[in-house]
């Protein structure tokens, strides 16, 4: 009986967590228009701009290096097999399609989750511990609007941008590999790339990146808002934010990939 009770308790907790995330997501969505310049609240867009720099610009070098490495690794692994069939040219398809549909959004999400998701939970968790969230509430300011919404808007804009840059770097790594192995020029490589991918591939990757951005921000912020206690609780929230957001990103990736496959989008 205890096992059933424990299982039930865990299931209820998970449903409550997802319910909390959904509630927070809609509150964040409602607050988004107030982050915009001109029509939004005075000066609020500047906060979103600062977040864009933190989430996007500061992450670019890391994403660039990781994408170059991943692109090269993918080309090397692919070439090892394809060379045996005399199909080395298909390394280009592998890298181009692999990055635009899958690796670009996923790699970007993992980097943003590790850098920014953890930062969100640490920042909000610390604000909780030092009563700053309470102070906002007592000043009749909505913490969702004041703390979460600028991050949400910034991530919705910057994660797709980073994904495009990740695709570019990954595909560029493929160009490097093809030049070193077959002396293929950049122009020829680019023509093969444009032959192999269609706009739909890029678009499906961007749809995923928007979903991943939402997950990272919502989970990171929720873990921060949940912090109770002292500094050690902030540490736990940070770890939890990265673990949960990475897990949910991969689940969402599977979901979207399955949807695209079943609807014929990825064929």
């Amino acid at each position, binding site marked *: 009986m205890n096992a059933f009770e424990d299982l039930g308790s865990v299931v209820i907790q998970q449903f409550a967590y997802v319910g909390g995330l959904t509630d927070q997501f809609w509150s964040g969505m409602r607050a988004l228009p107030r982050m915009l310049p001109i029509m939004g*609240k*005075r*000066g609020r867009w500047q906060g979103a701009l600062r977040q864009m720099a933190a989430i996007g610009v500061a992450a670019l070098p890391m994403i660039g290096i990781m994408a170059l490495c991943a692109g090269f690794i993918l080309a090397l692994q692919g070439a090892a097999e394809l060379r045996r069939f005399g199909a080395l040219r298909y390394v280009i398809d592998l890298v181009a399609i692999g990055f635009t549909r899958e690796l670009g959004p996923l790699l970007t999400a993992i980097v943003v989750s590790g850098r920014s998701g953890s930062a969100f939970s640490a920042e909000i968790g610390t*604000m909780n511990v*030092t*009563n*700053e969230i*309470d*102070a906002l*509430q*007592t*000043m*009749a*300011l909505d913490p969702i609007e*004041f703390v979460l919404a600028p991050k949400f808007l910034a991530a919705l804009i910057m994660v797709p941008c980073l994904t495009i840059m990740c695709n570019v770097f990954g595909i560029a790594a493929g160009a490097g590999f093809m030049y070193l192995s077959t002396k293929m020029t950049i122009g020829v490589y680019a023509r093969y790339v444009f032959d192999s991918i269609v706009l739909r591939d890029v678009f499906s990757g961007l749809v995923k990146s928007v979903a991943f951005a939402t997950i990272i921000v919502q989970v990171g912020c929720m873990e921060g808002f949940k912090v109770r206690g002292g500094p050690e609780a902030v540490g736990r929230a940070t770890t939890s934010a990265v673990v949960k957001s990475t897990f949910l990103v991969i689940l969402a990736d599977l979901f979207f990939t399955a949807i695209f496959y079943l609807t014929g989008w990825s064929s």
Partner: protein
Amino acid sequence: MTEPIISVRDLSVSYEGHQVLNRVNLDIQPNEVMVLLGGSGSGKSTMLRHIIGLERPDSGSVLVRGVDINRCSAKDLRNIRRSVGVAFQDAALFNSLSTEENVGLPMRELTTLAEPVIEIMIYMKLAVVGLGAAGKLQPYELSGGMKKRAAVARAIALDPQILVFDEPSAGLDPIVSAELDDLILFLKRAFQMTILVVTHEIPSAFRIADRVAMLYKGSLIAADNKEAFKGSTDPRIRQFLDRIPDPITESAAVQDHLRELAGLTGVAP
């Protein structure tokens, strides 16, 4: 007697089966300084969090300016919150903002005042608390006393009717603590504010209070003017005022637990 500006009615709160507040009733009149005393774990911080609407009680109600803050609309709650300024124990200044940005935050967010007006008002609020020259400093550059003053400046930014202090003297040396007491009295005199102070510092309490209330193990055991409170013969109040320690190791619960640890059973001789 006038209508109370804050009215706590039968407030009961429990956390995980542990009763923290037990049917507490307290009225706070306009323009008075009410000090809420109590030892550690007496429930005073919990009561403060319920009075400022940060938590919902199990039962009972908190009326601020006649509005039940747990059952009113979101708009009414916003209006009530705008009329209550809170200075938290650890100041709760936003570390990402400078001192003047902290003070200006409620004005920028909740009013339509023009920027030059806001800048003048920020300076005035900081000058009131003696921090006129510290506006550009970041919170981490301020001393403990300055942080608390900055928190007061932010709390009075929108000229609230009610000002709430959570442990204003905590962590401050006696001189800075006395300065803060003077500031509280000045605010009451100059702005006719109703002030609620939660503390366990007895000298500070008697210096600033018009009335003193005391919580003991979640129950309100006194709410009287300070002279009557000072002269109380209630043993729980006398123990607090005369600083008499609890005989911890002699308590029945501790003795029972020690016997249990030693593997002894049965009734103590």
